[in-house]
Structure formats: structure tokens, C-alpha cells
């Protein structure tokens, strides 16, 4: 009874808007003696996540309870810090934790924490309350209410999952993030976006030529388009609106990369057949060349501070990853292993780089600790390329060709575990980049 009244105190009601998920940004007010932090130790916190309790007919279960619970469990598993105990063993009946025996029934499933969700449906709106309990102490450690249109029930689950990741790890969850990529599923290569888990793919461009190598930051996407026969850099919003060409004055215009503040674009440009790294202002103009070797330079990416640019150069005879100051000075080689390294991507913290690497045979994804040079290869199956980091740095999204087509996958950036295929079906999906 005590716990329940505290639960009520924590909740705040926010009226649902017509067509958007509303979340209540009420602080969780965790119990004073309970500190559960996960991540970093390798141990995953076992959670019991029973189905959303939603009174109503089968239709409510199918439209709301099932998609909500499936999304929530999938997200929490994906986070890499939780393990969901088997729902088959969950006790039925009341979820109140009035007595130690109530908690024991859940502890018996192997869970240490109970994620109790309950929903109310009124017309087209759903209100979902989440209560998270430490089972041993029977203390509530998180409580929040979410409401919105019933068609946004999956978004509500993503929002709750983000909040739980934040609560337990202190990190920002990625469950409302977007992956922008290239696909030829509709014919010509165009730019697409999808949810972090591969759901809701949508096409952003209709250039009907070649649209390649997107990069995204701060609500903007840059890419290369051949719509006017000669490749040019384009910029647009992450929903595909406001498409605009950025004239550079040089050729090639490949692999554009937005600076962290969004004001500049680094790219591979060419004058008279000598591909170099250039920078141009996002507003157009201000072109400057950063490299001036006779070798081939390509595929730049900014460090998160914007002070350095990593890129590919073949000046030693094979494509290798180099780094230089953002002014173009102080170039030094980073990779020495393998005979082909390219498509570098800097981690959000700036301590690591991911890149496509090859020694013999197929390409793989490698991650290097920049300070020590220590490198790990995270893939061993298929031909892999174009890695990009999740906003929290925990995941890498990349392309992998297995069998006849190339598709987008994700994996843990630390060790290559938890590989998941995000795209499937018609055509190829390549060159993914993760948008916060």
C-alpha cells in the first residue's frame, strides 16, 4: 500500500496530443538506498518484463499490448546490459509486491528487477504506466507514465526503453534513433532512412541516378548525387525535405562528411585526376584543399571535436587510414596491418576508429584504439564495409554481403557480439550511418 501511494506520487498526467507520443518528463525519483548500475562488468541485469496489462478485448491485446511488450523486450535485450527472463515462467495474477512472498515468485524466475507496465485505452489514445521494482527490497526504482495515440505504441515502448537504459547505465538510449542508408530496392540507388532496428524504412530521395555515401549530423544529411550526371554534394533534412545542391568547384565530390558543428563538409574532391581531401562550407563557398600529395586521398571523417580528420591515402602503395589536423597539417599514418583499409568512422568519444579492413580474402570491420593502435577485427563472415557508430558508441552499423546481396547489420562495438541483420528483401542496402 505504501509503495502504491508513492507510485501515484511519482506519476504525472499529461494530456495526449492528437497524433504524437507524449511522454511525461517526470524525474524518476529512485528510492534512496537502491543503486543498480549495469554495464562495464559484462554481467547483464536479469529483468522480468511481463506483458503490458491492458484491460480490453482481443483487439486491444493485438493492437497495443503485444506490439508494446514485444518492442520493449526487444529493445532491452538489444541494449546489451539486460537479460530478459523467460516470460513462460512469470507468475500470473496480481503484480503487487505486498509481501516478500510476492517478490519471491518473481525472483524465482531468475529476475532481479520487475518491469511492470499497465495501460489504459480510451478511444484512439493509450496511457501506459511503467513501474520498475527492485525485487529483493521491494522498492520501486523507476516510475513514469506515457501517453499518446494508439498507433504510436511502439514509440512509447522505445521511449520507455531509452529511459530505462538511462536509469541503469547513465547513457542515452538509441531506441528512437535513425539509420540513414543507400538502397537500390526501388531501382536506382537512393537515400533511405529506417528506425534503429530496421523498421519503418522510407525513401528520402528520388534522384533516379546514383545517390551515395550519406553522412548525418544535427538533423542534416549530406550525400553525393549523380542526378546532374556529374557527382555533386547535396544536403537535406533527415526527413528528406529541403534538398539542395552544394557547388564545390571541383570534381568527384565523394564521401561528404559533416563537421561536428555542421558548418563544414569534408569530402574527396578532384582537380585533374588527383583526388584529395577538401573542405567546403555547408552554406557553399570557402573551398580549401587539405591534402596535396600526388597520391589518392579519399573517404574523410571528422573527429568528434572537429580538430582532426581521418581519411584514406594510398601514398605508401596501398589504401591506409591516415589522420591530420583539420587545417591539413600534421598528417600521420594510423593503420599498418593489411593491404586495404578504407571508409574510416570516428567513434563518438573519439578514442576509437572503425574501418573496412582487408589482409587477404574478404573485407572485414576493424576497430582501432587510436592512442595505442591496438586493433580488433569484429567480423569474420561475408564481405563487410562502411562501418558507422551508434550515438552512444556501443554499436556499429555496417554493410555485409553474404550470399547474393549486401544488407545492413549491427553489432556490439566492443567485441562484435550480438550481430543483427536490419534490412532484407529486394535489392541491396549499403553505406549505413547512424543518426542520433
Amino acid at each position, binding site marked *: 500500500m505504501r509503495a502504491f501511494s508513492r507510485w501515484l506520487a511519482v506519476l504525472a498526467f499529461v494530456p495526449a496530443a492528437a497524433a504524437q507520443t507524449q511522454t511525461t518528463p517526470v524525474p524518476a525519483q529512485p528510492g534512496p538506498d537502491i543503486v543498480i548500475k549495469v554495464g562495464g562488468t559484462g554481467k547483464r541485469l536479469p529483468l522480468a518484463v511481463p506483458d503490458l496489462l491492458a484491460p480490453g478485448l482481443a483487439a486491444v491485446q493485438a493492437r497495443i499490448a503485444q506490439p508494446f511488450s514485444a518492442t520493449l523486450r526487444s529493445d532491452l535485450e538489444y541494449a546489451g546490459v539486460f537479460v530478459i527472463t523467460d516470460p513462460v515462467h512469470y507468475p500470473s495474477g496480481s503484480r503487487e509486491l505486498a509481501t516478500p512472498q510476492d517478490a519471491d515468485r518473481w525472483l524465482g524466475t531468475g529476475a532481479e528487477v520487475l518491469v511492470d507496465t499497465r495501460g489504459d485505452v480510451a478511444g484512439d489514445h493509450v496511457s501506459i504506466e511503467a513501474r520498475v521494482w527492485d525485487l529483493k527490497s521491494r522498492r520501486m526504482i523507476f516510475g513514469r507514465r506515457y501517453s499518446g495515440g494508439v498507433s504510436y505504441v511502439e514509440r512509447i515502448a522505445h521511449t520507455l526503453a531509452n529511459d530505462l537504459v538511462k536509469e541503469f547505465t547513465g547513457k542515452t538510449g538509441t531506441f528512437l534513433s535513425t539509420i540513414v542508408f543507400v538502397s537500390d530496392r526501388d531501382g536506382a*540507388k537512393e537515400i533511405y532512412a529506417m528506425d534503429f532496428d530496421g523498421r519503418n524504412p522510407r525513401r528520402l530521395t528520388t534522384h533516379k541516378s546514383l545517390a551515395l555515401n550519406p553522412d548525418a549530423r544535427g538533423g542534416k544529411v549530406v550525400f553525393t548525387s549523380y542526378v546532374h550526371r556529374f557527382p555533386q554534394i547535396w544536403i537535406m533534412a533527415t526527413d528528406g525535405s529541403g534538398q539542395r545542391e552544394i557547388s564545390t568547384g571541383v570534381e568527384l565530390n565523394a564521401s561528404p562528411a559533416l563537421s561536428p558543428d555542421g558548418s563544414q563538409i569534408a569530402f574527396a574532391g578532384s582537380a585533374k585526376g588527383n583526388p584529395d581531401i577538401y573542405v567546403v562550407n555547408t552554406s557553399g563557398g570557402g573551398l580549401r584543399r587539405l591534402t596535396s600529395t600526388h597520391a589518392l586521398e579519399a573517404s574523410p571523417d571528422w573527429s568528434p571535436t572537429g580538430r582532426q580528420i581521418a581519411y584514406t591515402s*594510398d601514398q605508401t602503395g596501398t589504401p591506409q587510414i591516415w589522420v591530420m589536423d583539420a587545417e591539413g597539417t600534421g598528417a600521420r599514418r594510423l593503420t599498418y596491418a593489411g593491404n586495404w583499409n578504407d571508409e574510416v568512422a570516428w567513434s563518438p568519444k573519439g578514442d576509437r576508429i572503425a574501418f573496412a579492413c582487408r589482409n587477404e580474402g574478404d573485407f572485414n570491420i576493424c576497430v582501432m584504439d587510436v592512442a595505442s593502435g591496438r586493433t580488433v577485427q569484429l567480423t569474420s563472415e561475408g564481405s563487410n564495409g562502411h562501418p558507422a557508430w551508434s550515438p552512444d558508441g556501443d554499436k556499429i552499423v555496417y554493410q555485409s554481403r553474404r550470399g547474393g546481396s549486401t544488407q545492413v547489420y549491427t553489432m556490439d562495438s566492443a567485441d562484435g557480439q550480438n550481430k543483427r541483420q536490419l534490412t532484407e528483401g529486394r535489392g541491396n542496402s549499403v553505406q549505413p550511418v547512424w543518426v542520433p
Partner: protein
Amino acid sequence: MRSFSRNSTLWLAFFAAAALVFVPACKKKPPTTTEQARPPAEQPSGPETRVPPPTSPAPSTIEGDITSQSLEEINRRGYLKDAFFDYDKADLRDDARAALSADAQWLKSHPSVQFLMEGHCDERGTSEYNLALGDRRANATREYLASLGVDASRIRTVSYGKERPFCNASTEDCWQQNRRAHFLITAK
């Protein structure tokens, strides 16, 4: 001017004949290594359709009045021979120089022709690096044509990297077909 033009027609006939002799002579050379296989003459190994034009003699440059042909037809007839490259290289091989020498003669006799040099790569490298490599291939070809007297202002370049392969099989024959600088005539 009239007599000059007649003269150049004669010269053309000479060079066209020379080219016809020269190209088959080249073909007889056995490939030195499998890595550097010459562009396959007849059949592509893959099921794809964009195969290189046949190496049989092009329609005579004398009788080939391109003004009466559409650009599409001119390109399909393949008056100009593509240049082929070694793996991860943009240097012009002997066979590429021979082809481009003949191309230069044809281009000089058709001075109103404007064209695009497309740089292409095989599927084995990464896509971003290959875009830059294709740029080098297209420009190496452009520079060589210019050195042979073709006005560089007639030539534009574009790199497709490995995005627009001529052939889709994972075989050396097919890869060789894709490592090329390809002519596309854009104005006649």
C-alpha cells in the same frame, strides 16, 4: 580549307587502316599473367549485358558519317575503344595506349565530338576508395588523349567507381571488363 579537309580524310583512311592492322596484332599477344588478363574479346563471362564493343573493325571512319546517326547509335557502334587497367592501378598499359592512339585519330577527325570519359572499377575494393580510383583512371585517359593532340576542353570525366559495372560475375575476366575508362560521346 576544302583541300585540307580532303587531306585529313586521306590521313584518316591511313590511320584507320593502321589501327585495323594494329589492334589484331595486339590481340595475338598471349596474356602475361592471369592477373593481367587482356580485355576479353568476345564473350563476357557474366550474364550481364553491358559488354565491351566487339573488337572487330569498327564501321569505317571514312564512310561512317556520324552526323546522320543519333548519339545513341554512335555510342552503340563503338567507334572509340575503351582503355583497360590493372587491379588498383590507374597507369595506362600498352594495350590501353594503343587503343587510345587510334581513338585520338578518330577524335581529331571528328573535332565537333564532345565526350565523357567514365572511370570504372571492379567490385573487389571498397566503394569509397574506388570512386577516387575511377577518377584517376578517367583522368589518366584524358591526359593521354590530350598529349596526343585531342583538345582537352572536349573531354569531361566522371567516376562511377564500382557502381556501374559492365559485367557482374566474380571472375577475373569480368573484373577486367570493369576496370576501364569508357567513352561516352555526348555531342557530335
